């Protein structure tokens, strides 16, 4: 059967382009030339549905790498994981085999982290992440280092604020079906129970693309809840808040950190955020301390965007590693050992490993008062306050 589309494509074109393609592919698959002092690849979701978060953390990592202390030059190519476990494993594989990495700055996405862990163990290279997924430091893998609090810890802060500070006793607990949502939901359930306040309404079945939240809000109202706790990614969280306000629901809404990202608050009119709070490891956009202000302004100048806690956490983590490299860490093993015992004064907080690879133990609760999109810090939790027996 004749293919009309092929008319006019001379045979020589096809041969020629095939040859070019072949050469190009050969060139790309060979390793990159190494002339820098160290090689620290970035392996994060640049495409796919976690690409907002992946972009933020990438920016934070890049900002640190561009200012490596001690005059060191670092080679830091970026590899896209595509928000996929299989993609993440192969991307990390490619990154770690492309040179002699001392560490890799990697994804915030829990499912991808799980797929990356065996690869890190195989190559024996430390991974620097900001993923909150509890199990990545609870499985005995010594190569995982995270620079945002373990979800387990931060959810304690979240639950404590609602129960102890706001004195709420009838919680409506809601999450979406993403990996982030399901993980947080399970932890919050546990924490509320430990605090003696079992939620009166629970729903973890909201798909992240759900549009109409009125059935959910109807059920929340019917349950007689006095506070709404939401743990989900930004879009459904924003819809819940907006539609609750539009429906005249005046209950306090205490969210997970997704809403704190500037790209999320941009979706609101300031008045819609009145009475809304969230937990967050840090909120650099509040510019609460001079150190944070300096960093946040530099970030805004460099990337043209307001920074978020993800970028700051990743920045601090990579900067800690670069500082250790400047102090003499040469091999991945040197670095791993140093990360387990050293203390580091970062921009957001002080970082020290608890022996399992969790280096961040600080969190804040921020609230909006309806006058601005930038929230205010209303509570601070750290260390032992973020552990519930």
């Amino acid at each position: 059967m004749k293919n009309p589309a092929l008319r006019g494509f001379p045979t020589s074109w096809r041969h020629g382009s095939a040859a070019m393609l072949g050469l190009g592919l050969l060139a790309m698959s060979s390793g990159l030339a190494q002339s820098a002092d160290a090689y620290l690849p970035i392996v994060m979701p640049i495409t796919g549905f976690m690409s907002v978060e992946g972009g933020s953390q990438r920016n934070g990592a890049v900002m640190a790498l561009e200012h490596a202390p001690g005059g060191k030059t670092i080679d830091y190519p970026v590899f896209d994981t595509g928000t996929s476990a299989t993609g993440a494993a192969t991307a990390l594989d490619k990154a770690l085999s492309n040179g002699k990495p001392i560490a890799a700055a990697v994804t915030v996405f829990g499912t991808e982290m799980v797929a990356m862990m065996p690869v890190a163990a195989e190559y024996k290279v430390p991974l620097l992440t900001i993923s909150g997924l509890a199990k990545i430091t609870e499985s005995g893998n010594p190569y995982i280092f995270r620079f945002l609090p373990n979800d387990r810890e931060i959810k304690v802060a979240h639950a404590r604020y609602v129960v102890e500070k706001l004195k709420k006793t009838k919680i409506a607990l809601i999450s979406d079906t993403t990996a982030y949502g399901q993980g947080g939901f399970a932890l919050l359930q546990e924490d509320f129970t430990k605090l003696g306040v079992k939620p009166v309404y629970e729903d973890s079945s909201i798909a992240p693309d759900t549009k109409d939240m009125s059935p959910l809000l109807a059920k929340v109202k019917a349950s007689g809840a006095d506070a709404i706790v939401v743990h989900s990614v930004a879009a459904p969280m924003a819809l819940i808040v907006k539609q609750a306000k539009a429906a005249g629901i005046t209950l306090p809404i205490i969210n997970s950190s997704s809403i704190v990202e500037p790209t999320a608050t941009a979706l609101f009119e300031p008045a819609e955020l009145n009475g809304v709070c969230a937990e967050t490891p840090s909120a650099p956009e509040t510019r609460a301390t001079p150190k944070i202000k300096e960093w946040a302004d530099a970030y805004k100048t460099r990337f043209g965007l307001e920074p978020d806690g993800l970028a700051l956490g990743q920045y601090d983590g990579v900067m800690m590693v670069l500082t250790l490299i400047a102090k003499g860490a040469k091999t991945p093993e040197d670095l791993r050992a140093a990360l387990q015992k050293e203390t580091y004064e970062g921009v957001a907080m002080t970082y020290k490993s608890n022996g399992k690879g969790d280096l961040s133990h600080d969190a804040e609760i921020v609230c909006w008062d309806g006058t601005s999109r930038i929230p205010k810090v209303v509570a601070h939790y750290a260390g032992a306050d973020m552990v519930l027996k």
Partner: protein
Amino acid sequence: MLSWLLSGIRLPLVLAAAALIAYALFFASPYDMRILTLCGIYALLVLGFQFVFGHAGAVSLAQATFFGIGGYITGIVATHFGAGFPVTFPLSIAGPVLLAVVVAVPVLKLEEHYFSLATLGIGLVVLLLAIQWSDITGGTNGLPGIPSIELAGFVLSDRRSVLYFVWGLVLVGCLISYQVTRGLYGRAFHLMREDRVAASALGVNIAHLRFAAFILSAAYGGAAGALMAHVIHVVSPENLDLALMVTCLTMTVIGGRTRIAGAILGSILIVFLREWFRVLENYYMIAYGVAALSVLILAPYGLVGALERLRVLLFGHSPRPNPPQVPEQAPQAAPAGEYDHILAARDVTLAFGGVRALDGVSFNLRDGEIVGLIGPNGSGKTTLLNVISGLYVCEQGQVTFRGQDITNSPAYLISRRGVARTFQHIHLVDELSALDNIALARAGIDGAGLLKSISTIGSDRRLERARRIALAAAERLGIADVVMEPCGGLPYGTRRRVEVARAIATGPALVLLDEPAAGLNEQEQLDLAERIKTFAADGITMVVVEHNLVFLAALAERLICLDRGKVIAAGLPDAVRRDPAVIEAYLGLGASEPLPIAAGVP
């Protein structure tokens, strides 16, 4: 052996395979081995998909679901029950197969879009379960900690051994695919996807074939999914989502939907494209999409098809195989018992919407008769043939063949009992030779089942016999000299004769010819009429639908005339053509001349 290697694109493929193997053995880094392992897993997935999408021609969107279920079974059984590979692997194949069996009955009956969406719907339900049933499946976070493959005390923990193992299984998969598709059974698939109507009319049990294809696709999918779980050590809902289905579809279409080499080429190309483009960050998927779309547009039959066309362009066609040496007559199916009339129709009625296409049609045929079926356009002639051959179901009435009621029988059963037919519009496979087209007649009747095909060693005897029978049929139609040429290039008259030969090759007792003389010149018509008479002399009853009364005059012993679904006249040709009702039907009221059969004959 040398001629086998030199035909088609086998030689470059073998060389490429050897180069790839050498690379994998001596030059591959651990990363390369991982990528090649993934290629193997996807190749297995695509090989399975080829059965239902390529060979059976049905767009199933459940392939990723089978893959995911296989992975989840491995994950769940390994992590919750601690079972090893020898237990989890067979279970990972059995699970999807079981699901396929359960949904096959309602789903395979559906047409095209409905079938696709039903398979998509099943996939969405399974995805929902995987996300919500987090106690078992780990939810969206997935199930981590899936161990490496352990067989007979050996743990395949290093990448090299996993690579070899996976590709070993791919080879097994290729072998099974090859066995299923190379023989007469495989030909039945080809006919079915080219032309469902002709396939039914030749005795191919389409429902069986689609079922077998669906089951095979599920088995391969589950196996591939299980292997993926062991390689990545984690299984999550992404293993069965739409994105994976899109990848599978893309690999299949780009590689070549019915070619084993296509499955491997397609999976290798897509995996490598992705890896090469990954450094482009934001533009990574755009580049991948553009590249894949370009290949799709430029290579209509996939890469394998494009390579073959390139070969023909550079080196000319491969030499044609030889025809079989000795022809063999097709055996006629024996009748079940005694009967009066070979075909009896009683009050057959069928309406389409408000139009009565057939209205109380009744007639009898005797053994060895040649009966002409005439009537103006739209009188129901083809509809009647469709009812007799089982392509349409009549609403009222009864059709009996050799004493057995075939009114509600499916077309393929009626064909196997001994009824053959041709069509108004020629239904042949252009790319196959005339001989192979005729040999397709035996696919439904002699084609062995799935298991027999897989276990056949050496050349397929059934296929060879089919070819011998085809040669005999070709000789009876006088086309034995051009029998090895592709049908697409044959002149129209020859193609008509190929179709008739195909009908004869089934060994029928009754043949229904639908306008066999249409488009033939006078010489060809006379020749065809003579040949039809020889078939009748052998005891085959012939029903010939025709407008060409000259052609029928030399041939028919009796005529039956239809008008608007009713039989308005039946009997000896002379009487029928003088019948006023017949004249009115053809020429309108007021005509008084009998229907002419040739110029100058009163």
